[in-house]
């Protein structure tokens, strides 16, 4: 199986006199300047190479540091990705899942945060079902906090891994036409991607049935489409979002088959996009609901597995950069 061509990594230019990443936490894309986003992507490149290098995929720079992955909402791939990222950099990684949490026993979120903090972690990765929960915890703990998804608000590492995937496949982000399709209303992935892609100069489109399109998208410099054929016209990248089955049974759209008929990604529909279109999906996919299985499996066009691969690299970069101050890295202390 041959790998699709990828563009060589190039260092992005920083404006003179600015710190490449002055933040204590990674809460969202909203707080990041374009050059800070580019810096994280640049940093991730080395980890892509290392992860591909063969058997010895290890770097000890986070040795002795404790990373807690506190996931208050179920997740498989993001949790696994953060765990592997931490371990490849030598951190001691501990996972706290929903079932093991005392949140179920009535403890407030802030008490949980203070409990975690008392164990002196060096980084906490959090996923929570409520928008803003990760920021709330970050205000109460003494170490870097990484948002692994909060409600419908943000999922910054997903947007970063998407951007890295696009940049490696297309060689750039500026000027590309990106169509993000599906359940925009409930999607933190869409919100983070709108901001990141627009910030790096892409033309961003939102494609969804009207019941799944939130208001106020013009504030993101995003153009909305309810006609998928029109939304896909000339697209360089098509990013499909997962549609939760419980939202398909009449609440937001009448049925899965009607949804697939009008908003599913099929060969015929994809023909409206640019000839070298890149198809992406944050996973897990509903084959035959939002995306035709054959498209997802076509390695020339689909970047779905590459997204997973970039996810580990991007998270390694985020863990490294956010802990530089406490590790006393020169220029960061």
């Amino acid at each position, binding site marked *: 199986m041959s790998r699709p061509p990828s563009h060589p990594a190039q260092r992005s230019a920083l404006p003179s006199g600015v710190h490449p990443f002055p933040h204590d936490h990674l809460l969202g894309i909203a707080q990041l300047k374009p050059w800070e986003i580019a810096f994280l992507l640049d940093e991730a490149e080395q980890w892509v190479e290392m992860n591909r290098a063969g058997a010895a995929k290890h770097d000890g720079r986070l040795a002795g540091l404790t990373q807690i992955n506190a996931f208050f909402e179920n997740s498989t791939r993001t949790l696994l990705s953060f765990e592997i990222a931490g371990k490849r950099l030598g951190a001691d990684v501990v996972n706290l899942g929903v079932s093991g949490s005392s949140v179920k026993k009535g403890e407030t*979120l802030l008490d949980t945060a203070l409990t975690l903090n008392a164990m002196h972690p060096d980084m906490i990765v959090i996923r929570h079902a409520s*928008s803003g929960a990760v920021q*709330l915890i970050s205000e109460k703990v003494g170490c870097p906090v990484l948002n692994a998804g909060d409600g419908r608000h943000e999922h910054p590492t997903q947007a970063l891994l998407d951007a890295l995937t696009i940049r490696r496949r297309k060689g750039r982000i500026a000027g590309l036409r990106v169509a993000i399709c599906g359940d925009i209303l409930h999607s933190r992935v869409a919100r983070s991607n709108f901001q990141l892609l627009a910030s790096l100069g892409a033309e961003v489109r939102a494609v969804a049935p009207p019941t799944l399109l939130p208001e*106020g998208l013009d504030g*993101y410099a995003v153009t909305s489409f309810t006609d998928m054929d029109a939304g896909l016209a000339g697209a360089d990248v098509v990013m499909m979002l997962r549609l939760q089955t419980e939202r398909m049974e009449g609440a937001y759209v009448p049925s899965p088959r009607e949804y697939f008929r009008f908003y599913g990604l099929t060969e015929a529909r994809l023909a409206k996009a640019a000839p070298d279109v890149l198809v992406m999906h944050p996973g897990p996919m509903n084959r035959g609901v939002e995306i035709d299985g054959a498209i997802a499996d076509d390695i020339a066009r689909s970047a779905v597995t590459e997204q997973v691969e970039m996810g580990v690299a991007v998270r390694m970069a985020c863990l490294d950069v956010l802990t530089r101050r406490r590790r006393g890295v020169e220029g960061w202390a």
Partner: protein
Amino acid sequence: MTGRIAITGARVICPASGHDGVATILIDGRTVAGIGQSEAPSDATVIDARGLVVAPGLIDAGVFKADTAAANAGGITRMVLMPDQSPPLDEPALVAYAQGSGKPDVWVHPLAAATRGLKGEELAEIGLAKAAGAVGVATGRKAIADARVMHRLLAYARAFGLTVVTHAEEAALTAGAVATTGEYATRLGLAAAPAFAEALAIIRDCRLAEATGAALHIRQVTTAEGLAAVRAARARGVDVTAGITPAHLMLNDMAVAGFRSFARLSPPLRDERDRLAAIEGVRDGTITILSSGHDPLSQEDKRQPFADARAGMAGAETLLALGLGLVRDGVVSLPGLVAMLSTNPARRFGLVAGTLQLGAPADLVVFDPDAPWRIDGHRFHGAGNTPFDGLPTAGRVRLTIKGGDIVWEDQVWRA
């Protein structure tokens, strides 16, 4: 300390009688014994209040807790209590108990629950509740979703001469929403409902009030469209009044940025256009009652992710100062503000109060309209969940008198 008290040198404002000028006001026992220019009687305790304002004690129309310390510090002598208590005020005995819950510092006037358990399904015993002391009935924190129940409630309440207080948010459209639809809600990823959900509720309830001849008070009208619906109904002769809290006059949905759960209110904060429309609603007299919506909440209720936090604010101690901001901005005159805070709610709920006329209960507030201070939730008497924390403001209560007793006095004044 009942006896004779003479307050001298202050600007005495009584919207009910139209009095507005420097005078001596004499309190004898539990009632007002006169306003005039004569010397204070020799046996009276004289309070020198030069440079200050004397007004009827504030009547806070629609609070969720009979929080006496906070009320007195805010110049409030009467609270119209919402039925959203634990348990809800849907039994005459509960109404009677609630009526006594402010003694001896604050008169509490309960609103009876309109429906059993405030569920919006079956009418509560509102006739018996009136006999037990209820001054009106209220739908609670939510609107009654079922138009048939609302229709019957209004028809029934009219027969007992009870004003129906309603919450104007169309129930199905706002279910689960914690913000107003718009760019801020979308950016923050908050479940939102359109602002017009308010107008939908108001249009329905005004039409039902028109059909039944009932008296309707909408506790908070916060949108341009909602205000237009109130004006239209009033032009048709519907007996409808509108209220608001300072939050919707001073804050817009930007206050929610950063997930500030203290700005989680019900109804949610609106956009700037609606905020300006609400100020116009005060200026043109569509909104006649300003209340605090006082709802003190614990840290456990508020220090939560935005959507998980309970809606509500502690407002009793800041009501007057924030109201005085409207006077400074030229939106209302000082007597106009005093009317919104005392005389108008007294009239709407049939209270013998909100006036300084001879023989009226000696409920007074003495305040310095210009004294500057900074709002600090940590210094509140009770919970400090205010969306105005840290805001510089002006207007300090110096003295609160309820039934002839001084129930609160500012520590720095006269020190």
